[in-house]
């Protein structure tokens, strides 16, 4: 539905995005995740046809976003970073206007506007001037204008920014309800957002896509899935020279290390991470610890969070080679919003 190939955008001499490639299947929700200034908004703007790309192609529903701009515009709903609202209009009047310029026929307009207001919980505010609405409601009007013409592809730039937790939950469930009939691409810098709403994630950093996958696979691929965290008591040199070596000798262990903490004297935290695709047996680990003569105070299974993945991908200079070619991910010279 949405195909982006080798897309680049340069502002003056500063590259905003470089060689961005990803695809979104029909009915899917793709989350574009990245820190501020990573190039998310630029990517969204190119997809919406608002900005031309410097290089590369982007297609929506088979139409090239720049060359067949008018065709693409009919097929997309777009919520920019700041909701584009005519504050002197009522909610209903504004949605009627948008439906009209998006090419919804006069006969369908009232029904479409009602539906968009219903989906975004705006019906009770339909005759209120947008100027008088709170930020949460304005954001919803912004989403309503993006779906009022029932477009096959919906582009949402930071759809939950500035909302309170309850509104965020509502908007997320709204976005999830759009999947299936619509293809959705949304950008965010909030991690739980993508893991909760998106089928797939593209992590973008400094203008480059550093990983694309489902949230579960991303975590599994990057951290080797599950592991254990232990709190042990013993001499640090002893633990380092014996216990860690023993643990690393266990089958399926990818990494065993001491995690720096401020635990009381002689107490240390250890992390044991499993090889990809294998499951560690807690009994073996416990037996090894006890066998090494080290006191075991706590032991629990740990699951890598998306946060770990994100930090790993966006703060480390070198990403894991399982995902991307290392040459592709040198930190780029600049970044732009």
């Amino acid at each position: 539905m949405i195909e982006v190939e080798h897309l680049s955008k340069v502002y003056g001499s500063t590259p905003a995005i470089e060689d961005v490639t990803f695809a979104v299947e029909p009915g899917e929700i793709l989350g574009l995740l990245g820190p501020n200034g990573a190039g998310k908004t630029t990517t969204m703007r190119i997809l919406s046809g608002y900005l031309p790309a410097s290089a590369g192609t982007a297609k929506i529903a088979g139409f090239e976003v720049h060359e067949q701009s008018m065709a693409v515009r009919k097929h997309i709903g777009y919520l920019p970073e700041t909701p584009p609202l005519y504050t002197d209009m009522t909610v209903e009047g504004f949605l009627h206007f948008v439906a009209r310029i998006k090419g919804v026929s006069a006969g369908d307009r009232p029904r479409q506007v009602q539906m968009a207001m219903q989906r975004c919980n705006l019906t009770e505010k339909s005759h209120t001037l947008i100027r008088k609405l709170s930020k949460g409601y304005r954001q919803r009007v912004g989403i309503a204008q993006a779906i009022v013409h029932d477009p096959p592809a919906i582009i949402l730039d930071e759809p939950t920014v500035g909302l309170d937790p309850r509104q965020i939950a509502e908007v997320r469930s709204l976005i999830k309800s759009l999947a299936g009939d619509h293809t959705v691409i949304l950008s965010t810098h909030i991690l739980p957002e993508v893991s909760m709403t998106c089928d797939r994630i593209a992590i973008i950093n400094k203008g480059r896509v550093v990983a694309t996958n489902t949230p579960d696979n991303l975590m599994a691929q990057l951290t080797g899935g599950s592991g254990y965290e232990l709190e042990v008591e013993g001499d640090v040199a002893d633990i380092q020279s014996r216990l860690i070596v023993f643990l690393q000798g266990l089958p399926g262990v990818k990494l065993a290390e001491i995690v720096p903490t401020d635990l009381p004297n002689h107490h240390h935290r250890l992390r044991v991470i499993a090889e990809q695709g294998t499951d560690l047996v807690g009994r073996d680990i416990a037996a090894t610890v006890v066998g090494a003569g080290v006191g075991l105070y706590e032991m629990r299974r740990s699951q890598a969070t998306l946060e770990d993945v994100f930090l790993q991908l966006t703060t480390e200079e070198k990403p894991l080679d399982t995902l991307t070619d290392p040459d592709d991910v040198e930190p780029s010279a600049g970044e732009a919003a």
Partner: protein
Amino acid sequence: MRVIMSNILAIYRRELQSYFASPLAYAIAGVFWLLSGFFFITILSGITQQVAYADSAGYSSPIDVPYQFLQFFLGTLGSVALFVLPILSMGLYAEERKRGTLELLATSPVTNWAVALGKLLGVLTFFTTMVLPLLIYEAIVFSTTTPPFSFTVVLLAHLGLILLAAAILSLGMFISSLTDSTILAAIGTFGLVLFLWVIDVLGQKLGGPFGAALGHLSLLKHYNNLTQGILDSSSLVLFASYIVLGLFLTAQSINAFRFQRS
């Protein structure tokens, strides 16, 4: 074609609605009516006093009061419009840029031309409604004249005013599309229009064919033609050219804005 018309109409209605919902627009209309009413009274009484004086002094050459009045009054209205129109046009695009709604228009299946034309028609309609009440009191005054005064001349003069307004608003719309500051747009438009208003003075100073060509660009000269009841096709062409030029430049500037923005 039907789609384009529908789009233009949608933009037109939205624009018009925003004027009728805007306190600024009402303030402008109020000031315009106040000033035009004031000038109406002073010019009318000025001319009638002049006639009374000429009568009592026994001058034989008659004065065409309605004609003179119309010319003076419309000339003054043109000057008032010079100040009022940049304020009406300043927000046309600057506001859209500031609010971010330009991003909505630019990603909707509407051409830049359609947006610009819809907006221009909207603001022009608002200005026309500002002028309409003046026609009423002109009609009252002119209905008392003997011999009856040709109302076609009055209509032609006002058509001149509307054409002048369309030209200024179109250029003002272009200036407004260059910036997201409404104040800057208003000042820029005022400067440009003032320059075009008096460009024939510059043309006379320069002389030669270039000076003559400059003189033809003057808004004031062509406007005066129309207020005198002279339907000169070159005036119509000039105003139409300014209108089309404004629309064209606006469409181009929106394109350029999207291509160059950083």
